[in-house]
Every structure is written in structure tokens, then in C-alpha cells.
């Protein structure tokens, strides 16, 4: 059998497969009926077999390139990307993420660094006004003082909707950036954490010394726990990736990074949710005219849910360990 005969014999199959690929690409799998799907699979296998024998049957280079492309195209339609599944995500968020975070040393480091620097910067700013001026900056100081010069219950409800959008975009953006920076061997995330902690600590310390401190704490109490925890989580998850490049547990650096990165995705989801919750509180409860006791109640409630999430859900239960969990912890 000559090559030209072979090509003529195959042409029909190949162009049928090409047509089916085109349909799948433009309309998606659900629009194709069952017979077309099984025909697609059969044609794909047949094209694979042709490609395998291309060399033995001395097909021209051009045809081989065409077959590579055709098989690749059909392969991409057959093995499609898996979409988000709500059930696996709930399981990840409520079971896997807390357990992973509970034992994760990168998250502990982020926690200690963030709160250490935050407290240090806060105390120093409280004692020495020029420290706060250096850390926070004069302009920012003036801005914030102006922002809290009025009691917090002046805003109309529609404006709160705008603020909610702003808080999600701004804060979750900071968190995601902090997370991504962790990839630079953990150093980027550490620097970003220190910056955030020093700035926030400076603001808290400075505001405590001013006349607006009442307004300020009235505003920040309710959403503080969720927001600050989310920042720590973001930094920790990012550093987990960066440290995986350094501590490889016997894998190659890239393989170790990949393992840590895939595990960090649900954590990312968790902290984005936390940022959104914080923004919800920050937009609708913090600026409201509710008495301070209610806001303090929200503060306590936030802390209780966080403890429930991280300690109760997160306490190890003898499942397989994730990357970076403390190996000497007995469960």
C-alpha cells in the first residue's frame, strides 16, 4: 500500500475527528450526543494508532506534524480541566485547611513574626511619637487622624456598600500579594509581613495616643480579628511555598515547590473568604451606630469562631500529614 493510498483512506477519519474537535471547542461536551462522543473516542484512538505507525509507514513530515497537532487537539478535548466542585471545596475548607494550618510551621512563624512586630511597633509608637512618625509617615498619620475625627455612625447605608467592595478589593489584594511574595524563598513574604505588621502596629500605637482613639477603636474592634488573621494566613501560606524550595524533604526543588503550591490553594481560598467576612463586618457593623458592647461582642464571636476553626477543626486526627507539619507532634 502506497503512502498516497493510505492518506486517502485516512483522510475521512482525520477530518471527521477534526470536525468533532471543532464542535467540542466551540460548544462544549454537553451539546454532543452520546454516539458522537463514542465516535470521537474511537476516532481519537485510531488517530493515535496512525501517529504511532507514522514512521513505519513513511508518512511525509508535513502529515506527521498534522497528526501531532490533531492528536494533541483531540487529547485536550478528551482530558479536560476539572472544574470547581462545591462539595470538595467545602471539605477542603472545613477539614483539610484547618488541619494543615494547625501543624504548619510556616504559619506559626508568620503568626509569631506578625504579632511580635505588631506589638513591638505598637508599644514603641505609643511610647515614642517620633517612632510612629517614621514608621507610619506624617501624611498617613494626618489622613488617619482626619478619618477618625468624627464619630463612626455618620455614613448612609448605600455608602457602606461601596466601602464593602473597597475593603474586599484592597485587603484581599494585599493578602494575595503577600501570599505570592512568599514564593521568593519565603523572604518576600517575610518582608511583606514585617512591613504590614510594623505599619499596622504603628497606626494602632499612634492612634491610641491621640484624641481620636475612642473613634478609632470603636471602628476597628469588630473586624480586627478576621482581617489580621487573614493576613497572617496569607503570609504563612506564601512562605510555605518559599520554604518548600529550601527544605525539600528529598524531592527536587521544583517537585517540592509543586507539592506545597497545590496544597496552598485551598488555604488561599480560606483566607480570601476570611477577608470577605472581615470586609462585610468592616462595611456594615464597624461604621454603624451600634453601641461599643455589640461590636465587642462581634469581636469575641470572631475570636471564638477562629479558635473553633483552627484548634477544634484543626487538631490533628491521625490523618496523613501535609507538607511542613511538625513531625514530632503525636496525634
Amino acid at each position: 500500500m502506497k503512502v498516497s493510498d493510505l492518506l486517502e483512506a485516512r483522510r475521512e477519519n482525520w477530518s471527521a475527528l477534526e470536525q468533532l474537535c471543532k464542535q467540542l471547542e466551540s460548544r462544549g461536551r454537553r451539546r454532543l450526543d452520546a454516539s458522537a462522543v463514542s465516535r470521537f473516542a474511537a476516532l481519537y484512538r485510531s488517530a493515535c494508532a496512525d501517529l504511532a505507525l507514522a514512521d513505519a509507514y513513511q508518512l511525509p513530515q508535513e502529515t506527521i506534524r498534522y497528526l501531532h497537532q490533531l492528536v494533541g487537539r483531540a487529547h485536550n478535548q478528551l482530558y479536560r480541566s476539572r472544574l470547581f466542585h462545591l462539595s470538595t471545596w467545602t471539605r477542603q475548607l472545613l477539614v483539610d485547611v484547618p488541619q494543615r494550618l494547625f501543624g504548619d510551621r510556616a504559619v506559626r512563624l508568620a503568626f509569631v513574626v506578625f504579632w511580635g512586630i505588631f506589638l513591638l511597633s505598637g508599644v514603641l509608637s505609643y511610647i515614642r511619637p517620633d517612632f510612629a512618625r517614621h514608621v507610619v509617615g506624617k501624611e498617613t498619620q494626618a489622613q488617619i487622624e482626619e478619618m477618625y475625627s468624627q464619630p463612626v455612625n455618620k455614613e448612609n447605608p448605600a455608602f457602606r456598600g461601596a466601602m464593602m467592595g473597597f475593603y474586599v478589593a484592597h485587603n484581599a489584594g494585599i493578602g494575595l500579594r503577600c501570599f505570592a511574595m512568599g514564593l521568593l524563598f519565603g523572604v518576600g513574604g517575610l518582608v511583606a509581613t514585617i512591613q504590614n505588621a510594623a505599619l499596622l502596629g504603628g497606626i494602632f500605637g499612634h492612634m491610641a495616643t491621640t484624641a481620636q482613639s475612642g473613634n478609632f477603636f470603636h471602628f476597628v474592634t469588630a473586624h480586627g480579628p478576621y482581617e489580621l488573621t487573614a493576613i497572617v494566613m496569607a503570609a504563612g501560606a506564601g512562605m510555605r511555598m518559599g520554604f518548600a524550595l529550601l527544605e525539600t524533604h528529598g524531592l527536587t526543588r521544583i517537585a517540592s515547590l509543586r507539592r506545597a503550591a497545590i496544597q496552598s490553594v485551598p488555604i488561599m481560598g480560606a483566607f480570601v473568604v476570611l477577608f470577605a467576612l472581615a470586609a462585610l463586618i468592616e462595611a456594615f457593623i464597624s461604621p454603624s451606630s451600634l453601641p461599643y458592647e455589640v461590636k465587642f461582642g462581634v469581636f469575641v464571636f470572631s475570636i471564638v469562631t477562629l479558635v473553633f476553626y483552627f484548634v477544634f477543626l484543626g487538631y490533628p486526627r491521625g490523618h496523613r500529614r501535609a507538607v511542613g507539619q511538625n513531625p514530632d507532634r503525636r496525634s
Partner: protein
Amino acid sequence: MHTDAQQLDTRVRVVTPENIAFQYHVAGPFRRLPAYLIDLAIRVTAGLVTLLGLSLAFGFAGLGSVGLGIWLLLFFMLTWFYGGLFETFWNGQTPGKRIMRIRVLSVEGQAINASQAVLRNILRTVDALPFLYPLFFFYLVGLVSATMNKRFQRLGDLACGTMVVCEEPHWLKGVARINEPEVLRLTPSIPARFQPDRSLARALALYVGRRANFAPARRLQIARYVGVPLREELGLPQSTNLDHLLCALYNRVFVTEDTPEPNGPPAAPPASEPASGASPFAAVAALALGERGDA
């Protein structure tokens, strides 16, 4: 991780579950930059259009700031999840990538999943460093990372185990036919049973595929290496043009003539059945590739 020690250029081999190896060209920076710029333009346009639309719609209702809040959420999604969502639902492509005919795949050659799509786009922040606020990214980190591995992977790709490949369209062409009268005249003098070995057949096909790019003198020079021994082997006169000889051999080997061959055609395998899609070569493939449960 699937690594291929034989990789010489930008082609990477992918082995499918059907045990077939096929090749991809990985996309380099000059293919990916335009795709990125197109996506950036789409994001900016979408941001402006939605801002206009929402502020008009909610502005008439007297709730302008609610519209602004919704827009800020949209803006956040556009900034951080545009690429991730498109690559999840469009099977590894964003609009820019589709226009530039590139696609994100995992390094094993399979389609990426949602986590890979989202994460590689969030880690873009690092690859885009250093940047000048608010819009000018230099992508130096990503560029350096891409030059340091075989698949042009930026850091986000390395972390997610993904790569970006080109999807070149190749059209199915038939076998090249040479209809020059000298060649057609020469073809009958080649024995019908002439069977070149595999490397010679490939050399003939490559030569015929490319001879159009060469001047006649250069064709003769290239054809000499194979042509002279073949001319002697076939007992053809010294005056035979070597370029035409190679073309005639090619015709004899690859192209079926309309005239029936004197010795009868070689036993042809049964014609394939397109409806079942099973290739007559599948059985041979199974033999050639060892014991596989698929046919």
C-alpha cells in the same frame, strides 16, 4: 515529573494514556507577551465599561455608591481571577491566549485543573516584578525564570507544574505530486518493486518536500550524495538528471499511479471502517508496541 532528556529545541514530548507520544512546541516570551497585552487591554476595557454601566444604572436609581461597591468587587475579580477563571472554563486559554493560539497545559501534557489555573495567575504578581506602580510591570523575574528551564516556565508555572504550548494549525495535505514531464518520463524506468529502506524513504520525502526552495544547481549538488549510487544500482544511463531521478523514485514509492502495475500491487490491508473508527493498523500497533490492552 516527566522530563525528556532528548529535548533539543522548543518541542516537548507528551505521552498520552494511549501510550502515544506526540509533540508540542512550547510558547516563548514573544508569543506570550502579545497574549498578555491583549488580556490586559480586555481587562482595562471591561473595567471601564462596567464602571460606566454600573454607575449609570445605579446612578439613576440614586444608589451610585452601591454601584461603585459592586464595581470594586468586579475589579478585584478582574485583577486577580480573570486569568484563573478563563483558564479553568476555557480549558487553559484566556481570550488573549486563544487569539495567539497558545494554551496552558500541565507538564504531563494534560489539561490543567482549577487550582493550577487560579494559582499560576496569582503567582503572576511575583513574575511581574519589578513593577512601577500602578500599571508598568517589567516581568523580569518571570523572564529570568523562563530562560532557566526548557519549557519557558515562569515561577508561577514552575509552582503549578504547567507550561504554555503553541497550537499551530497544520492542514492535511496529500502526498506531494511532481508532474514535471521529465520526471513522469523517468518514472516507468524505476522497477515497480523498488523498496527503499526507511532512512532512504525519509530522505526522499524530505528532499521532495524542500526542493522547491533550491535552485537547479543546488538541487543537483544535494541529490548527488544519494543519486549517484542509486543511478548505478538501477543501471540508469550517466546522463540521467539526479534531481529528476530522486523525484521519480519518490513517485514510485509514495504515489500510486493510475496505470496498474505489472506485478500486481502489494497486498493491501483491508480498508478501514470509518464508522467503527478502528484502524487496521491498531492491531499492528498493538504488536509493535508490545502487549497493550487497547485496540
